[in-house]
């Protein structure tokens, strides 16, 4: 059981790593475009809101009713 979980996790990690790297290639080619459109302050705050909503999970930090 443990071995299987570990194997699955390893395969997923390697897979994700590969995927992430693939996705980065075109971005690198487009560097000038990316530089030209640096995120605005509003974009950054929006990203922070998005992240916080996920990270806060169902647990602490937000009191419950």
């Amino acid at each position, binding site marked *: 059981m443990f071995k299987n979980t570990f194997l699955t996790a390893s395969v997923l990690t390697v897979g994700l790593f590969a995927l992430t790297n693939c996705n980065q290639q075109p971005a690198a080619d487009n560097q000038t475009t990316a530089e030209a459109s640096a995120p605005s302050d509003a974009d950054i705050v929006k990203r*922070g809101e998005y992240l916080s909503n996920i990270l806060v999970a169902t647990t602490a930090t937000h*009191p419950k009713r």
Partner: protein
Amino acid sequence: MTPQGPVLDMARRFMGHPADEPFSAADKKELIQSQFVAVFSPGMTAAAGPWGVSFAANITPDDTGIGAWTEAQFIKAIREGKSKGMEGTRPILPPMPWPSYKNMTDEDLKALFAYLKTIKPINNTVPKPQSL
């Protein structure tokens, strides 16, 4: 608390464990010290485990929260699990998942901090950690 369990109270978001909400696990000390059990408050903002009793921090931009914090402090707190993000402070206790959150990029941590600075400040002095 609802029949479906605790529901996020968005009006009090990020204010941490409410100062007026009592929590004690004194009668479960032995069980907790056996290291087989940890105990949460129903709203899950307070927890007692082998580390003692911890209370979710106020991370609104109030003086009782992270109002006076710099971005660098926030990043250090999450990356190194240092309370207040300062040198020589105590470690941030469980269940704060900083050992996972520390893997966020600088960009994402900065975005989180920028967002937290925009939310409504809530005055709430969270209790200090306690021993069991």
